[in-house]
């Protein structure tokens, strides 16, 4: 937050009912340290009450506010306006790709949430071991009894950025595979490996690492997918030698 003032043009994707989508521009006076979501909310509050968008926590814990900002997936509540444009510049805001649009900027999460639920990935996980294994020293000294909310906030940014998800609705998608990896690490439930071992599971991913680049919450879905592949292969090999059912 600062006392600086910028004039910024928000170019917002609009869509009502079955009408085709179009863009609408709004010129706003903003504090460049405010977040993109603040700008969007202000458009709703002062310029156009019909603007529909998803949001809840405004501090990156709920995952509701994922949008495309100047073509890139962003969690808009923690994306300072300063980081995406300059004074007199433009901010183009669109709904996430690869999700059905409900209206304007809000998208329908049902398929995604249904798939997440099918992995049974818990939101509350033990603090110890909850970080990525290669993040050395993080939370390691914590009491084993401590717990915390998991990293994935189910924002859908990774699915929007994934070049495989763009061509097939059947692909489970990075967040779901990452959730399966984490759930498997916690529970060892082999059914998860079986479920994700297929053409719409771990093998569809073509290792573009787009998901990891846009994930706002340190999940590193691509790393988890590669780890899941290794686990899937490991299980197949064991089965080959009759060591697993």
């Amino acid at each position, binding site marked *: *937050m600062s006392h600086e003032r910028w004039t910024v043009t928000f170019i917002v994707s609009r869509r009502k009912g079955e009408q085709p989508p179009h863009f609408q521009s709004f010129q706003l006076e903003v504090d460049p340290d405010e977040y993109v979501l603040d700008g969007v909310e202000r458009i709703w*509050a*002062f310029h156009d009450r019909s603007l529909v968008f998803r949001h*809840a926590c405004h501090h990156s814990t709920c995952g509701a506010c994922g949008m495309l900002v100047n073509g890139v997936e962003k969690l808009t509540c923690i994306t300072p306006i300063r980081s995406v444009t300059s004074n007199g510049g433009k901010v183009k805001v669109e709904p996430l790709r690869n999700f059905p649009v409900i209206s304007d900027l*809000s998208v329908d999460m049902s398929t995604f949430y249904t798939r997440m639920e099918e992995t049974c990935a818990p939101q509350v996980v033990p603090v110890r071991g909850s970080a990525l294994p290669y993040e050395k020293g993080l939370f390691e000294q914590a009491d084993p009894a401590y717990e915390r909310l998991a*990293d994935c906030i189910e924002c859908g940014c990774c699915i929007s950025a994934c070049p495989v998800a763009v061509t097939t609705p059947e692909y489970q998608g990075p967040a779901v595979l990452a959730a399966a990896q984490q759930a498997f690490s916690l529970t060892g439930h082999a059914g998860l490996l079986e479920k994700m071992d297929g053409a719409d599971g771990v093998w569809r991913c073509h290792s573009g690492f787009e998901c990891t680049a846009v994930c706002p919450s340190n999940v590193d879905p691509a790393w988890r997918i590669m780890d899941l592949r290794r686990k899937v292969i490991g299980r197949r090999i064991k089965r080959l030698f009759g060591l697993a059912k």
Partner: protein
Amino acid sequence: MAFSKPHIIVIGAGFTGCALAYDLARRGMDVTVIERGEIASGTSGRTHGLLHSGGRYCVSDQESAVECIQENIILRKIARQCIEFNGGLFVALTEEDAAYAPRFAEGAAACGIEIEQISPQEALRLEPNLNPKVLTVFTVPDGSFDPLRLALAFAASGRYFGAQFHPYHEAQVLVFDGQRRVKGVRVLNRTDGSTREVHGDLVVNATGAWAGKVLAGSGAQVNVTPTPGVMVAYDRRLINRPINRLTPPSDGDIIIPQRRMMVIGTTSYEAEDVDYIPVEDEQVQQMYSDAVALVPGVAGCRMRGAYMSARPLVGKGQSGRSLARTFKCFDHLEADGIDGLVTITGGKATTCRVMAEKTADLVCKKLGLSIACETHAYALRSYRDYYTPNGGRP
């Protein structure tokens, strides 16, 4: 039982509206929820996220404190899925703070909050990043929750029992039956611009800080002053449990962990308009120095987000008697001579279940029914089921 199900319309899907929809649906009623945005897009989504133990209120407002600890225990059972529960600390940093300790201990005992005084050394063993100058420390059963997911869990459970949710639908005006009785709401579908009337046996206004606005022009009244508070999130998790400053409730006195973050809150001032309240730089600075006082390591963190939300402060000149003192629940028949309308506002996220219980009791009474509340006894459905096509029902 030959009774046609009563149809209740709930306006607002924050914690209160979602918990109420679940309670009413569980009692066998038809429930329609009208919410202008996404679930929890009002005050609820933007709360601090502290599952109160009641410690914060055990001196100044014991009734609230008792309610908090009772609900804290219930939510830990029914909403485990979105609560991180590591307990919490109350810490005294100055002699003045420490002088408050005996009153705090007495209050907690009176309210049935399990606290324990531990030595500063022990506290620093539990939370190595705590300010090493702490003088007096108590443990309390605090926790932190994910705001959207807590609301979704109630909403999902409501859907499981048949409640219908209509997000992105705005209640425009109340519809009367010609007399002074509300028969429904005119609703704007914000996704396509169409409007329609929804009729029911009773309308519950659960719009929190917007409760007064929704009733505007209807003859019914609640005077609500939005009193916002600012919160700031930092990008590292240096603590594992909420740290409260051991003083009478004041600004910036609680820091909570959430995921990989810490969130410090909060302030309190009065605002005019609820729809958009800017976060001022001065408040962010104040939050920062308050946070550094409790956990000095905050100085080495990056700010991740700054946000605010507004409590509904119900005006002093309010006519009509509230059902409870800890939150405001009005039967508008009593207050304004308007039937078929109830307003519920105020309270806390931690106590949303019992607020819903009391409101659903009132709804039952108004409809001449006696059905007992069961929401305290069963775990909520998975929050993800809110988005699944049939609400998790087979």
